[in-house]
C-alpha cells in the first residue's frame, strides 16, 4: 500500500514540477507570479525525501508530505496544502480505501484549508476545485455508484470547478486586491489543486 502511495506522491510531484511555468503564469496575471515556483520548490524537496526513505504506513507518507510542504513552500499555498495533507495523514489508514474513506479524506483536507485560510466556496481559490470535487464524491457515495465512476465524476467536477474560477471575482488571497480585474483569469491554486486531484485519480484507477 505504502509503495503505491509513494508512487502517486512522486507522480504528483512530477506533475507540479512540470507545470511550474504554467502555474506561475496564472499567478502573474492575478497574484505575484510565484505559485508554480513555490510549489515546485516544495515538491522537488518532497521527491528527494521520498526517494531517500522507505515507508511502511500511508500516514507517515502524508505527514512527510505535509511537513515538507509547510517548511519549503511558503506563501499562502504552503500552509494551506501543508495543513490539508497533515489532516489527511490523521485519518488515512493502510486499508484499501472505499468511497466512504475518500469522502472523509476530502472533508479533512477541506477542513484543514479552511482552518488556516478561512475561505468559502466561490472566493476564487483552490477550494473552488476541491469543494465541488468532494461534493461529487459524496453524491456518488449517496447514490451507491462504483468507485471508478465516482472517481471519473469527481475528476470532471474538479475540472469544472477549476474552470469556474475564471468567471469569479476573488475575495480571498492576493487576487482579491485586483477587485473586478481578477475576473477573467483562472485561479492558480484552483489549477494546482486540479492537477493534484487528477494525478491522484488517474494513478489510482
Amino acid at each position, binding site marked *: 500500500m505504502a509503495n503505491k502511495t509513494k508512487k502517486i506522491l512522486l507522480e504528483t510531484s512530477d506533475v507540479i514540477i512540470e507545470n511550474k*511555468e504554467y502555474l*506561475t*503564469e496564472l499567478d*502573474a*496575471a*492575478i*497574484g*505575484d*507570479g*510565484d505559485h508554480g*515556483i*513555490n510549489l515546485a*520548490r516544495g515538491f522537488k524537496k518532497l521527491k528527494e525525501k521520498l526517494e531517500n526513505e522507505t515507508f511502511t504506513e500511508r500516514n507517515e507518507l502524508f505527514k512527510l508530505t505535509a511537513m515538507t510542504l*509547510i*517548511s*519549503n*513552500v*511558503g*506563501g*499562502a*499555498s*504552503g*500552509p*494551506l496544502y501543508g495543513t490539508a495533507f497533515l489532516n489527511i495523514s490523521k485519518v488515512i489508514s493502510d486499508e484499501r480505501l472505499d468511497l466512504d474513506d475518500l469522502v472523509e479524506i476530502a472533508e479533512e483536507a477541506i477542513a484543514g484549508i479552511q482552518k*488556516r*485560510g478561512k475561505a468559502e466556496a466561490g472566493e476564487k481559490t483552490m477550494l473552488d476545485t476541491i469543494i465541488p470535487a468532494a461534493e461529487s464524491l459524496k453524491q456518488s457515495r449517496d447514490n451507491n455508484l462504483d468507485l471508478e465512476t465516482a472517481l471519473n465524476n469527481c475528476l470532471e467536477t474538479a475540472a469544472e470547478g477549476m474552470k469556474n474560477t475564471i468567471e469569479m*471575482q476573488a*475575495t*480571498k*488571497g*492576493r487576487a*482579491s*486586491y*485586483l*477587485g473586478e*480585474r481578477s475576473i477573467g483569469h483562472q485561479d492558480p491554486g484552483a489549477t494546482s489543486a486540479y492537477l493534484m486531484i487528477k494525478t491522484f485519480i488517474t494513478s489510482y484507477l
Partner: protein
Amino acid sequence: MGKKLINDPDNVVSEMIEGIVMASHQRLEKLNDYNVVVRKDAPVEKVALVSGGGSGHEPAHAGYVGQGMLDAAVAGDVFTSPTPDAIFEAIKTVDSGNGVLLIIKNYTGDIMNFEMAAEMAEAEGIEVDHVVVNDDVAVEDSLYTTGRRGVAGTVFVHKIAGAKAAQGADLKEVKRSAEKVIKNVRTKGMAINPCQLPAAEKTTFSLAEDEMEMGIGIHGEPGTEKTKLKKVDQIVELLLDDILSDLEIKTNEKVTLMINGMGGTPLMELYIANRKANQLLKDKGIKIYKTYVGEFMTSLEMEGLSITILKLDDDLINLLEAESEINLL
C-alpha cells in the same frame, strides 16, 4: 529587462543574507540552515521583535535588525512568505523570556505562516503575540478583500515598537505602540516599470511606453488601475489624496512623510516627488515633522514610488527620535 546581477536564481536569498551579515561586521548573524538574520547579541533582556516576509523588499527586513529596532528578520523566498519552521527558529533565538512580538504584513501567506510558527513557539512555552500591518490604502478594506496590504508603513512599526522595547516596556505595551502606528499610518504606491522574479521568465505585469500602474503592491502584483503616464506632481497629488481621505488629519497636526523608492527609481525622482508632497501638505496646513526620502521597502528593480504618512503625537515623536543602531530611519 530580465538581466540580473546574480549567480543562481535558486540561491539569491541565502547569498544575499550572507552578504548582509558580512557587511554588518559581527553585528548580525545568520542562523544555520535558515534565511534568518538575528542580532549577534541575541537574546537581549527585553521584549524581542521579529519581522519578515518575502525577500525582494530590501532593506526590509534584515536591514532593520539591530539595537533599537528588530531582533530578527526572517527572509522567505523572493515575494514568498517564509515558512513556519524558519520563523520558529527566529523566535527561539531572540526570546529572552520577556516575550516576542511578531510584526506581520497583512498577506494571507504571511499571516498563516507566522501563525503556525506562533503556535509552535507557544507549544514550547514562549510568550508570543503579533500585530498585522495594513497601511496600503490602494486596497479596499471591505468584506470583498482580505483587507489592506502591509507595505512601507511597516518600517515605522519596526522603529517605534523597537524603541518601546528598547526602553524596557513589556510585551503588551510594545504591542500597544505597534498598534498605535498601524492605526495612524497609510501608504499608496505606483509604478512605471514592473519587476521580475529571479526564477521567472517574465515580469508579473507589463506596461506600455506611456502607461503606469496606480495602487501597486510590493510583490509585483498588478496595481488597481492602469492609466496613462502622468507628470510626477499629478501622481503625488493622486496618491496623497487617497491617503488623506483614509487618514483624517486636522490642520496643524504633525506627520512624518516617507517617499519610498520601489528599487529601481533614481533618488532624483524621489526628491522631485518629495517637493510636491511637501507643497501639498503645507497647503493643507499639515505639519511635516520629519521627511524620509529613499528606499525602505522595495520590490526588486521595480521603478515607482510609494508615499507613506504617519500621524504623530508626542509619544510617537519621542519613540521615533529614539537612538538606534539602524541609521536608515
